[in-house]
């Protein structure tokens, strides 16, 4: 509890993200989601429930808006005033964007949410006192609070179903905030294996639960600073840079013919998730 400890670590701890002189090394986890490949099937969302011990809250609590899906599939309609949705719907998987300058990180009074060295927004359950300021400040509203004590609720996890719980992931009690972690338990396991072999995690060695499940392969996940990774190549091909709030390609009036973008980029949270725009055929 030394003051020097506080002062020394403070600048590192609270260093503004993103930064050029302190690049992420050797990992920066990022994701890219192809909205043209996403079919809206919800497999990713259910896989996330299975992997991360997410409680099913039931009809009444869902009605109150207390659902817990870390990954939600949003469905948008075209707003062209036509009688029928001629171009189908648009699905968008939305989860914690692991923002580099996360609005949630600065406002937690007890420092329960911080940025890790490998670029994740961390949520420390046992530090969280439940002030919910992080959720208030999240523009995407992807943080979910445990409004009830689900582990002791028989309706949520009857004794038999508790055996399905993933032992690598804490089961959260009431009063703490939770959100997508990019399956940090899988990342830790992979890093541990790699470390014991004296190397870093290679592309394809670790998958998030959602990525692993997605039937069309719409989700790419990996190490953004690894030039071999798919996610790095995608970000590069789409000319989306992590540390810009307005991309160079968007400077032109007519826009760009590249599909990559980040949501609410202008608010400058510097999200680590890039989306590829949905495409619709113009010839039909």
């Amino acid at each position, binding site marked *: *509890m*030394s003051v020097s*400890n*506080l002062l020394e670590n403070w600048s590192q701890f*609270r260093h503004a993200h993103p930064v050029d002189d302190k690049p992420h090394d050797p990992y920066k986890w990022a994701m890219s989601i192809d909205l043209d490949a996403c079919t809206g099937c919800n497999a990713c969302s259910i896989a996330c429930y299975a992997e991360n011990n997410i409680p099913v809250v039931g009809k009444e*609590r869902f009605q*109150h*808006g*207390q*659902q817990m899906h870390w990954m*939600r599939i*949003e469905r948008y309609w075209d707003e062209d005033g036509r009688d029928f949705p001629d171009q189908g719907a648009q699905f968008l998987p*939305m989860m914690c964007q692991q923002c580099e300058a996360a*609005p949630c990180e*600065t*406002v*937690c*009074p*007890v*420092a329960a949410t911080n940025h890790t060295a490998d670029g994740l927004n961390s949520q420390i359950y046992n*530090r*969280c*006192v*439940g*002030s*919910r*300021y992080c*959720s*208030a*400040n999240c*523009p*995407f*509203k992807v*943080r*979910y*609070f*445990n*409004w*009830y*004590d689900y582990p002791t609720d028989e309706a949520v996890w009857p004794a038999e179903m508790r055996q399905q719980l993933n032992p690598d992931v804490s089961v959260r009690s*009431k*009063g*703490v*905030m939770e959100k997508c972690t990019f399956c940090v338990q899988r990342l830790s396991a992979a890093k541990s294996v790699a470390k014991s072999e004296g190397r870093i995690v290679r592309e394809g060695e670790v998958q998030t639960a959602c990525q692993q499940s997605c039937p069309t392969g719409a989700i790419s996940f990996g190490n953004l600073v690894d030039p071999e990774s798919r996610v790095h190549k995608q970000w590069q091909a789409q000319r989306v840079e992590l540390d810009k709030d307005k991309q160079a390609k968007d400077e032109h009036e007519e826009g760009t013919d590249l599909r990559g973008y980040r949501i*609410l980029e202008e*608010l400058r949270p510097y999200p680590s998730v890039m989306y590829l725009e949905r495409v619709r055929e113009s010839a039909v």
Partner: protein
Amino acid sequence: MKDIREDIAWAKINQDVMKSLENPRRLYWVILFVAICAFGVGVACEIYQYRTGMGVANLNNPQVWGLYIATFIFWIGMSHSGTLLSAILHLMHADWRKPIYRFAEAMTTFSLMTAGLFVMVHIGRLWQFYYSLPYPNERGIWPNFQSPLLWDAMAIFTYLSSSILFLFVGMIPDLAIARDNMADGWRKKLYTLLALGWEGTDRQWRNFRVTYLTIACFLIPLAVSVHSIVASDFAMSQAPGWHVTSFPPYFVAGALYSGCAAIITLFIILRYTFRFEEYMTKSILKKIVRLTFAIAMIWTYLNAVEFAAVWYSHDEASKAVLIEKATGTYAPFWWGMIFCGSVVPLVFAFERFQTNIPVLFATSLLLNLGMWLERWMIIAPTFSHGIYPWTWDHDQWPSMVQWGMVFGSFGWFTLLFMIFCKVFPSVSMYEVKEMVYHRTLHLKKSETAEQGAH
């Protein structure tokens, strides 16, 4: 214009105030009983919430904050009354504050305590609230000093401790009077202990004046900063409807407003209950009413500034929230706030209402209702109609648990306040004597003050 009668003897002042401690009107007991019941309701609600989870408050994603935060801010706001009267008006040599600043200071202290309670009931894991304090721990973790909520915690602690100090220091001469005029018993022991051996010597008075003034000067910027910090809970966020630079002064103005309105309410109650008609005179009431009116207009202006700033900004999300406030689910409450906050105080502009007790009582309650609504209307529309349309929730209302705790908080505050008024002199005897004393300077030499010079 004389605020109190010039010819009140000092001994009579002592008598009147000391008698109030023994023998208030029956209304006192009624109020005390109601306060205990209300507090009981609040406690029951909290126990239920503590054991079951925050979900019983009917909060959800995105409406993660509700009446707890709104009422928290309301109580912080109320706390500015004391500082305004004790400190600011003290520096301005407004003598009319003297009979009333004591209970206003008490109001400040107890408002802060009530607000503190709300911080605790609002967080999901109340039993770990101490994580927000910088205490030595085995993990070597400090709280997050970047967070406005933490500034809140620091500021409120500082403000509370300073207010208690201020209240206490200011009471010392009165406690000495009480000590000297009290029959033996636990009260006498209490006053003896707290009076710190005050004898009323010149040296003591000199030190006293300097100390009092110093704390007053310290407390004024503290009060401004506390509510500015509370405002920054919102202003530092980028939620639409919150990210407004005028929030700190707006909140401070609102705080002063709500504090003054509460002073009027309590003034009327105490005047009747403790038979303080001589001291809490109508002319003082008139002055506080006029002050409230002025602050109401300032608040109205700052409110309009907020709307204007949103309107001419390019922030579509904030504009949408403003329109939603005026036309959406919560519109009746928002318009209620506008009415209570900006239209109702116009009553104070009319002289015949400025000393009309029933009208003033009703109006002051409406003003505070307006201020409470204002805090709620800052929170609910922004959450229900935020940046991200998928999560809009226009149908969330606080549950009975939340209302129960809001109700309970009023009970808690009233309980503390009433106990205070029964144990400690709620009119500052020595300062009232100063008012009379100054006047007696102009009395004929033949007429002297009666016995009991303190």
